[in-house]
């Protein structure tokens, strides 16, 4: 058992980021309390360097650590997106934690650890590794959700997320055990080989379904979404923003790799289950969002709804003719969602006041007149979440629905567009409040926050006009997956 340099090459971005986070933990001790901005800067620097390393690996495809982890176009794509989310997450958090009086160095290191866990999720090709990655990403997030202690809502969010998250992890472990029982291995490739030899599929199916339940919790798919609104509302908003993108991306990445690599044989049963999950998630998320008056809760349900749209891309995962296009569409949609989502949460952070004040949708009244740039950005994000031109959200939905129709699931696409119509109602309500009602909102002016919001808004619009290269990258990313 010897590890070669190739093995390390597979996990080099992950190793780099983890090491950086460990060192930063020590360095942070010597950074005085009032200069924690330095920690933020160093964290962002670590993410940027890792991003550079990740991007230098585009085009490499190999496995390492005895088949426990893989480096391929898919992992590079997802990791790049995760690292970008991390940088945006820090930009959003930097002024916010200061303002809330919860600026502690651990915030940033925890964020880094969580991202490294997410990256490992995208690379893991063994169920044991998936489990470890899941824990590594989740535990820092539990702490971050409760970071605004002693505020009760934040503590409650952390506790709730921890309990339900642990429960979900339990499902994954139990599922893994059953899969191991059925196939004699936890390695995804070995499971595939054994499944095609005609092992007992009942045990395997149950195992896969349990793993699906676990991931369903992480990505907030109905009916495993119960924790989402409370945790999203209670957690510090900057954490929520990161959770809504990062955890979802990682959850979907793992779900995709596990199912596409190990369980294509189960596609017959799983397709129906995924179909139902996607449909339920879209319907429930969008309908419940209508009645929300708190912007954080509304965006929480919106994130549930979007999990449903992304799940649509997974439904035809067992159909060789269309699965690559379909998964590429899912990846593209994840990018569109990540940018839009960060931008929208950025606006929420800009308006939020201490003690969870000014988080009602009605607090946005008059924003269009008082802060036209911010309101315009929010309008872009809302239009993108609806799927309206000229935004990335439209291109993403166009891509996604096309893949779903090409796979023959016109009914699901129909549910998708009809729920988009429903969603237009509650997203537009934010726009109505901003532009058509009078009010005197005040906004926190923070350089990094403003920059992050501006950049995401610009990307949301401009990338929708020139999506060619992103399309191409997403299509290449899935080539080696199957």
């Amino acid at each position, binding site marked *: 058992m010897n590890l070669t340099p190739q093995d390390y090459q597979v996990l080099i971005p992950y190793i780099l980021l983890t090491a950086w986070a460990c060192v930063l933990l020590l360095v942070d001790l010597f950074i005085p309390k009032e200069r924690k901005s330095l920690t933020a800067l160093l964290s962002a620097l670590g993410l940027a360097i890792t991003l550079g390393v990740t991007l230098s690996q585009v085009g490499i495809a190999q496995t390492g650590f005895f088949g426990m982890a893989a480096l391929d176009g898919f992992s590079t794509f997802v990791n790049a997106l995760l690292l970008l989310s991390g940088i945006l997450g820090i930009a959003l958090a930097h002024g916010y934690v200061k303002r809330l009086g919860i600026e502690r160095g651990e915030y940033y290191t925890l964020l880094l650890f969580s991202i490294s866990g997410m990256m490992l999720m995208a690379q893991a090709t063994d169920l044991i590794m998936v489990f470890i990655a899941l824990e590594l990403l989740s535990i820092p997030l539990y702490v971050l959700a409760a970071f605004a202690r002693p505020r009760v809502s934040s503590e409650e969010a952390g506790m709730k997320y921890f309990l339900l998250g642990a429960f979900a992890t339990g499902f994954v472990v139990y599922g893994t055990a059953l899969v191991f029982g059925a196939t004699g291995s936890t390695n995804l490739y070995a499971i595939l080989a054994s499944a095609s030899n005609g092992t007992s599929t009942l045990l395997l199916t149950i195992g896969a379904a349990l793993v699906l339940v676990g991931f369903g919790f992480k990505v907030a798919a109905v009916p495993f979404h119960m924790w989402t609104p409370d945790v999203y509302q209670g957690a510090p908003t900057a954490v929520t923003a990161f959770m809504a993108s990062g955890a979802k991306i990682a959850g979907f990445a793992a779900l995709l790799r596990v199912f596409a690599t190990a369980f294509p044989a189960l596609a017959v049963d799983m397709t129906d289950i995924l179909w139902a999950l996607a449909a339920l998630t879209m319907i429930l998320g969008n309908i419940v969002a209508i009645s929300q008056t708190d912007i954080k809760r509304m965006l929480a349900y919106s994130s549930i709804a979007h999990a449903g749209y992304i799940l649509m891309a997974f439904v035809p995962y067992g159909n060789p003719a269309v699965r690559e296009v379909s998964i590429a569409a899912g990846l593209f949609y994840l990018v569109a969602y990540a940018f839009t989502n960060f931008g929208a949460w950025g606006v929420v952070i800009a308006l939020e006041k201490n003690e969870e004040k000014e988080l009602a949708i009605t607090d946005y009244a008059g924003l269009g007149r008082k802060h036209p740039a911010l309101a315009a950005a929010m309008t872009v994000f809302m239009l993108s979440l609806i799927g309206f031109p000229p935004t990335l959200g439209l291109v993403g939905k166009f891509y996604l629905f096309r893949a779903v129709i090409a796979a023959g699931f016109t009914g699901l696409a129909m549910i998708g567009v009809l729920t988009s119509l429903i969603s237009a*109602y509650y997203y537009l309500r934010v726009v109505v409040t901003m532009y058509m009602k009078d009010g005197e909102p005040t906004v926190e002016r923070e350089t990094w926050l403003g920059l992050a919001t501006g950049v995401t808004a610009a990307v949301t619009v401009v990338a929708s006009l020139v999506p060619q290269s992103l399309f191409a990258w997403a299509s290449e990313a899935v080539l080696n997956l199957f």
Partner: protein
Amino acid sequence: MEFLLQPLTLLTFFPLLGVLVILFINAEAKNIIRWVALVTSLITFGISLWVLTMFDASNVNLQLVARYDWITVAGWNIQYFLGIDGLSILLVLLTAFLTPISILSTWTAIEERVKDFMIFFLLLEVGMTGVFLAQDLFLFYIFWEFTLVPMYFLIGIWGGPRRIYAAIKFFLYTMAGSILMLLAILWLGIYGGTFSVPDLVALGSIPADIQWWLFLAFTAAFAIKVPMWPLHSWLPDAHVEAPTAGSVILAGVLLKMGTYGFLRFNIPLFPEATVKAAPWIALFATIGIIYGAMVSYAQRDVKKLVAYSSVSHLGFVMLGLFAINPQGIAGAILQMINHGLSTGALFLLVGMIYEQTHTREINVYGGLWKITPIFGSIMLIVSLSSMGLPGLNGFVGEFTILLGAFGSQAIGNTAYAIISALGVIMAAVYILYMFQKMFLGPQGEIVDEVKQHGHALRDLNWREIVTIVPILLFIFWIGLYPKPFFALMAPAVEHLVGMLPLP
């Protein structure tokens, strides 16, 4: 540079230049903003005339084509594809013509947030022109949906008391239709491997049962936009609440996007389904004509009256389109223009009096002609044009449509034409009723009421006359000598009809 200097690209996106300039002007400098917007839209109109000079009516193919690959990966084949032909040229000109007029009409009517207003208005022009020029379904969909956004703001910010309700209703109603069309567009893109409309048409026939579903999905989007009875309920709300300029553009151009959609997409892409659906559409169109006229007559709010009259007039357009013969379609296209001119003018005139009186209640008016003779005279001409008096534009369009519908093989029943002809008479009833109540007879109570507020009702001022006179010119021109207008579209219409498998 080559990309930007394409005449059609320039025509579509020139207003964006105005938007950019306005963005950098102080919001308090209202007059400068107005002038920039007006000049931008006038130059755009100039570009549209330049396009007209380059247009060759005898050529039935798309002209001045700007075609570039846009997104071409993973089985996608989306193009940036603009083109113009006899079916769209008049509508493009109408858009470019009505926009400066509408902007001029807001000079004193819009005082609040002028900067935002003009930005949205110019963005709207980009969207509308794009809809009429786009020849790629994806590009078309983007422009089509995009027009909703500025219009939504125009109604929602500068509208009447129930503006928010009207704006959301407008948005959701239209979107409901569009998303069904989106599914059909995606299906076509997968089926044909391209989103380019001419290529899809050339590809030949789609299996009949699928064609029927696709036809219905496209119809959902367009019929709501037109609006066809019974999908019209968003229209009166949107019109009543919208500011004058919004109403003018809504009636003048946005509704035409629906009828144009039938013409450009439904008929050539789904020929069998079109022929099959023709009698049904004719039935709904006829109901719309009669229903719209009856409901118009019942209105006490003059703007609502004009709004419902649109339902009736657009019924004629639909009847003409689905007569599927050269007269019917040519009449329908001309009637789209006519309706844009006369209903646009009606909304402008109503807006001009509303600006002084702040009421649209028909009953409080009366005897206005004596007090405001120029206003009254112009109103009379426009009203007569709207009800289809021979010698004015409305007559030419409606007459040609009825002629087409009467001899239509596709509709196959002359009853629709006969009943629809009644609509013309009913139009005379509600229009003259409105005119008589407001302009003739004893002086209405509003005259004194306005006087009590210190300033008597005044006649049209120079700016208002300049706003309305260009429309009057066209009302007479089309009414007396429509030949050049028919000549622009006739070859394209003949070509389109020739493609259809008529019984």
